């Protein structure tokens, strides 16, 4: 046993360098400030005060969370039926469908998002289709709808795959038992299939919500320069403004918000499955 645990050493070194160190640097930057000549940095909470006392920043944060929530809800509503269909089709068909879902993710996300620019732009194919119905002047690109579409498009595979995995793992004899005991299709779904697939939904939610709330390339490309989410604020602080300390503070605030969200989601899941056991 001991020899095996020694094998983990390279991984631990790797994790420290690649995961822990950058995180620690962000925390260090977040709580410091470029000081004077003698002390190159000093500890301060000013960056956090600056963020939380500025109405504009809070509005951007609120809008980022809202759009991530919308993305997540749409992904669940669209992704669940698709995952359900995939999970309950024949083995051959299932493998092909999963390939169809994963295939686009082999292409770089930026490239695929650029493709949407062409599709949504003025005079693009979608506007031409709308033109048939006399709605040719509708602006598609550089709207919230375009950003939402880009996010759902990019993140929905994660939702589908997660739900599909938990549905595939489910013991099929349970639904048979449910039918034998007189439950109809809807009852079986609500009381057997859905609860058993919840862990997949929950991990799907984390895989969609987290990247959506901090995304900066999708709003930049599909929302235009006047569509700023919290990810863009952070990117801007690092790249153009050069305020690494303030940028790190916002990153840290975001990380804490994400951790809190995940904690709540996991508790909800534990609560719902725990509650059921008591009722049984």
């Amino acid at each position, binding site marked *: 046993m001991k020899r095996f645990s020694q094998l983990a050493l390279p991984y631990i070194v790797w994790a420290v360098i690649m995961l822990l160190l950058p995180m620690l640097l962000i925390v260090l930057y977040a709580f410091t400030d470029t000081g004077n000549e003698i002390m190159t940095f000093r500890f301060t909470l000013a960056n956090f005060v600056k963020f939380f006392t500025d109405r*504009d*920043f809070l*509005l*951007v944060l609120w*809008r980022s969370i809202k759009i991530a929530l919308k993305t997540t809800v749409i992904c669940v509503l669209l992704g669940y039926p698709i995952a359900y269909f995939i999970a309950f089709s024949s083995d051959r068909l299932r493998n092909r469908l999963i390939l169809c879902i994963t295939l686009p993710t082999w292409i770089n996300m930026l490239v695929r998002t650029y493709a949407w620019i062409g599709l949504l732009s*003025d*005079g693009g194919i979608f506007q031409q289709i709308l033109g048939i119905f006399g709605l040719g002047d509708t602006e598609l690109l*550089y709207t*919230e709808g375009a950003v939402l579409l880009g996010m759902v498009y990019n993140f929905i595979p994660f939702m589908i795959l997660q739900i599909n995995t938990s549905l595939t793992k489910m013991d099929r004899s349970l639904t048979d038992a449910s039918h034998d005991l007189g439950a109809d299709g809807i009852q079986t779904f609500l009381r057997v299939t859905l609860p058993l697939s919840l862990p997949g939904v929950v991990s799907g939610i984390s895989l969609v919500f987290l990247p959506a709330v901090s995304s900066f390339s999708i709003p930049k490309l599909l*929302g*235009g*320069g*006047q*569509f*700023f*989410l919290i990810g*863009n*604020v952070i990117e*801007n*602080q690092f*790249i*153009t*403004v*050069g*305020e690494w300390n303030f940028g790190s503070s916002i990153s840290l605030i975001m990380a804490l918000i994400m951790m809190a969200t995940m904690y709540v989601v996991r508790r909800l899941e534990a609560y719902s499955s725990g509650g059921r056991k008591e009722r049984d």
Partner: protein
Amino acid sequence: MKRFGIICALALMAAGLSGCGGGEKGEYAGQTLHIYNWGEYTGENLISDFEELTGCDVIMDTFESNEQMYIRVAAQDSYDILVPSDYMIERLLQEDLLQPLDKSKLDCFDKLDPDVLGLPYDPDNEYSVPYFWGTVGIVYDKNKVALEDLEAEGFGIFADEKYKGDIYLYDSERDSFMMALKYLGYSMNTSDEAELNEAYEWLVGIVETMEPEIVTDEIIDNMAQGRKALGLIYSGDAAYVISENPDMGFYLPETGTNIWSDAMVIPKSAENPDLAHEFINFVSSYDGALDNSVTVGYTSPNLEVMEYLSGEDGDYYGIDAYIPRSGNKNDEVFSYDPDTRVIISDLWSRVKIAASNAG
């Protein structure tokens, strides 16, 4: 990608060899010139012609912003020629990253427009030779915008509610603040925080009431197709837009604008400065400059080329955006000040936040 690179290298070598076989010059055969230039900023035959002339191989990398270029040059990546903008040349000089030109190897200065020589960032052109130059102005749809409005309001037309929802702003802190400061009658190189704040308030007013789209190079195609009435644009892009769509016009407000230039410089880390001087001569020559300006559409510093292209037989005949304005005392050249740069970047990101909170 790697294989593609090898094929390219072979193709370049073949071109170099054939140039050598038939060429009279070929004195640089086997040598390599490393160029770092803006994307889509060279004439279609410029590089191959230069390779044929000298027998050398050219490797050109491209950048999208001065800041991106700066990072690699400051990290001592080896290039023989860079093409940064005015204020960035000033920064590179301040940080001692450029080497002085050997004027005995250059035969180009008498061909260049005196208006684009001796600019404040390099008063005696000891370090730089201009590559392209121009102004920043307003591109407008002549059918939607009256010239009288532009003359009366200048850059203030971007705050005129008549054109609400019908304007493009350019997503660049320097150009946006230039516009605001010039409208308010200040120097665009001001470091006075009160003036910068006033410019900031003016820009916030625009994004909150005018529903502008803040874009970058999309403005070129969109204005060529007449999608909106007004936009802030570089003169060279305006020349292209107008040559595509004669309904478009270009206006420079009397309150002044930015006279910008991009120029060739040789960094200290250059490995082949002799060849770099040769390249500067070639780009500045009539043939090289003509190829560049015809392909890219920006104004050539070569006087003869500029006069030919804006003359009766030229590609840009009758397009006044092609000839940068001279003689307006309000026009200025950018200078580099690190502290002001940080303030302006921060304020511009706040303008964009205000824009998205208003939407």
